[in-house]
């Protein structure tokens, strides 16, 4: 039976991609953000996931306003990252897992989510940068199932609906008969606003509220309407919806493994968190005991 180990939650600012391409990770501006990643990679090294369910939002690479799905599930064997308008070199994107994609699609529709399925799908920086951060300098050694949430064109799905979507994905993973080690990623945020006279807005207090409640009480994050989240977090801070959905897939009880919060990266309050499931924690402890015995 497949094992769900937990999730990595991270900001996905395009400028991070630029910093990676320039090799700027140790510059004073960037170091506080990139310093969040060694503990994440250590955890990944212990848990060795081979599938990533990626909750993210597209920023106008795959989806345009001609057709804007609220929830879109990738069902392709291959995905691509391409030029998003700035001429940056595309990041490598690992292969898909169409069988698991369809199992998730079947479950979501059975659970009465009216989703869009995508057998041909570009994934933008919101998916490619988190993978490049988790597994630098190579294609991530995983298969992916991208789940894109509309955070661009209002009306957006409510936080409550996103959490429910994630929980339904979690049910699909629990029923999946494969033997994969599965993790989720939730990308975007935290507070930031690119547009309007309030551009540059951030709200550490709200970000802290989100990070403090994500593991033990994610329902707390659903008490705000989308409009209230925009007010608290900024027009693009509403990407917290991706984190909420990803959290939903992890079940009731998770443990916080690591957390980093830094202001600013570009116009954004940047955060990185790892949450692990009970199953992963038990396995990690067993592994640690085994190592202790060997020593």
């Amino acid at each position, binding site marked *: 039976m497949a094992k769900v180990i937990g999730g990595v939650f991270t900001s996905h600012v395009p400028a991070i991609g630029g910093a990676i391409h320039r090799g700027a990770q140790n510059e004073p501006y960037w170091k506080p953000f990139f310093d969040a990643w060694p503990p994440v990679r250590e955890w990944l090294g212990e848990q060795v996931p081979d599938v990533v369910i990626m909750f993210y939002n597209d920023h106008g690479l795959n989806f345009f*306003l001609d057709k804007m799905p609220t929830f879109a599930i990738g069902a392709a064997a291959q995905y691509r990252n391409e030029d998003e308008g700035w001429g940056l070199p595309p990041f490598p994107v690992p292969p898909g897992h169409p069988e698991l994609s369809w199992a998730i699609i079947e479950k979501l529709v059975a659970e009465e989510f009216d989703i869009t399925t995508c057998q041909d799908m570009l994934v933008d920086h919101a998916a490619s940068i988190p993978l490049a951060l988790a597994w630098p300098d190579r294609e991530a050694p995983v298969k992916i199932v991208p789940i894109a949430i509309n955070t661009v064109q209002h009306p957006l799905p409510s936080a409550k609906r996103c959490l429910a979507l994630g929980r339904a994905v979690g049910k699909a993973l629990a029923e999946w008969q494969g033997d994969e080690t599965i993790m989720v990623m939730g990308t975007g945020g935290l507070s930031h606003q690119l*547009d309007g*006279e309030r*551009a*540059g807005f951030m709200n*550490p207090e709200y970000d802290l509220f989100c990070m403090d409640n994500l593991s033990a009480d994610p329902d707390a994050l659903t008490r705000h309407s989308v409009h209230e989240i925009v007010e608290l977090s900024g027009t693009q801070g509403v990407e917290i919806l991706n984190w909420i959905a990803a959290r939903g897939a992890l079940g009731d009880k998770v443990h916080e493994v690591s*957390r980093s919060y830094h202001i*600013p990266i570009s116009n954004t309050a940047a955060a990185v968190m790892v949450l692990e499931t009970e199953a992963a924690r038990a396995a990690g402890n067993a592994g640690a005991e085994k190592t202790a015995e060997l020593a």
Partner: protein
Amino acid sequence: MASTAIPGTHIFDGAAARKGYALNAMCFSFNEAANRDAFLRDEDAYCARFGLTAEQRDAVAKRNVLAMMAAGGNIYYLAKLAGIFGLNVQDVGAQQTGMTVDAFKQMLLDNAAAIPTKEMAHG
């Protein structure tokens, strides 16, 4: 919108999506380098090809981001247009807030002062 307006904040809703369709479609096309080059070669012809409204064409000609948004532009698409002119989101933020780029960047840095001290312990 039934909800109270948020100062300095423009919700990209159905009305904006309808109004801004041509402008956003043009910006979406800038994902391809050949289209960015075509825009730079003949801006008028390129804008005409996408049927920009007079308001949109004027906003683009003036490189005025707030005017583009008033004409239905969405920031994610406008960021692709801004990139053609070598402008990043700090440049765009500075223009919208009427600040110099340096002052805008300083404001972003100053946001760190609002991090609650409890959180500082986490690094």
